[in-house]
């Protein structure tokens, strides 16, 4: 009987681990981009500063993957010179037009869906959620991903219950006042571009594995 329960437990535990399925990347491999243009980000959150913060976190992971990333601020500046002040307008443009303008192989569109801190008295949850879409210069979508990251400050000091409660209250209030989004945003990008099963394949400048 005990053996049966043990077997059941093991099967339940292993059953809980959902392996994300690897998506077909043939479209990406067929396009085989060398350079990626990151266009200004569409913001669907309530924080007006969010797009610029996210824009600064994108080039590093993509460069680490071995691609040439067009200078994001220069891109923004040029687009403004061309009259595209709103990122929504840029996202409406077909990728082929943008790619031609910058001589890029692929265009990366990023949308911010969430960038907020929810305050619930003794704990604050900081949430970021991004949507990524990469389109080749011929207009075919070659890669897309959506990522949500959450952070909750942990209060694991063991002392007088009242002290713990007050500590938690202060901690939650502090997180509410100055939410630290950047580590979350960086982590989301790192996972999406480098760590996940469906991350983009290595680019032409990727570091060769050391033998």
């Amino acid at each position, binding site marked *: 009987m005990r053996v049966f329960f043990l077997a059941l437990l093991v099967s339940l535990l292993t059953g809980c681990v959902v392996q994300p399925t690897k998506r077909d990347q043939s479209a990406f491999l067929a396009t085989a981009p060398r350079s990626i243009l990151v266009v200004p980000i569409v913001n669907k959150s309530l924080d007006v500063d969010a797009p610029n913060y996210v824009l600064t976190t994108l080039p590093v992971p993509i460069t680490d993957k071995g691609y040439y990333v067009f200078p994001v601020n*220069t891109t923004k500046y040029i687009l403004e010179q061309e009259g595209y002040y709103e990122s929504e307008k840029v996202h409406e443009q077909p990728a082929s037009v943008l790619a031609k303008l910058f*001589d890029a192989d692929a265009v990366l569109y990023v949308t911010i869906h969430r960038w907020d801190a929810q305050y619930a008295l003794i704990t604050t949850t900081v949430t970021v959620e991004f949507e990524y879409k990469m389109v080749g210069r011929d207009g075919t979508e070659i890669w897309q991903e959506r990522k949500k990251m959450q952070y909750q400050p942990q209060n694991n000091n063991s002392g007088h219950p009242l002290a713990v409660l007050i500590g938690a209250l202060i901690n939650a209030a502090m997180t509410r006042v100055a939410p630290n989004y950047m580590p979350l945003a960086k982590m989301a990008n790192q996972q999406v571009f480098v760590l996940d099963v469906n991350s983009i394949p290595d680019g032409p400048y990727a570091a060769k594995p050391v033998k």
Partner: protein
Amino acid sequence: MEAGRQKVAPGLYAELGTLYLQAGESAKAKSYYTKERDAWPESRGLMTAMIENIDRLDQTKTEAAQ
């Protein structure tokens, strides 16, 4: 990084060039755009366009001054 003979990350020279351009120092901007173009062949199209733009602006400026 230059002294260490490591390759400078893509886009860094160009960003610096744009900052110089926005500050009105087009000669410095041009030199950094040239560096970016030489370091990363993928950027050639854009950087050449930027340099040509600066040249054209400088030309119109000198013509206006005359």
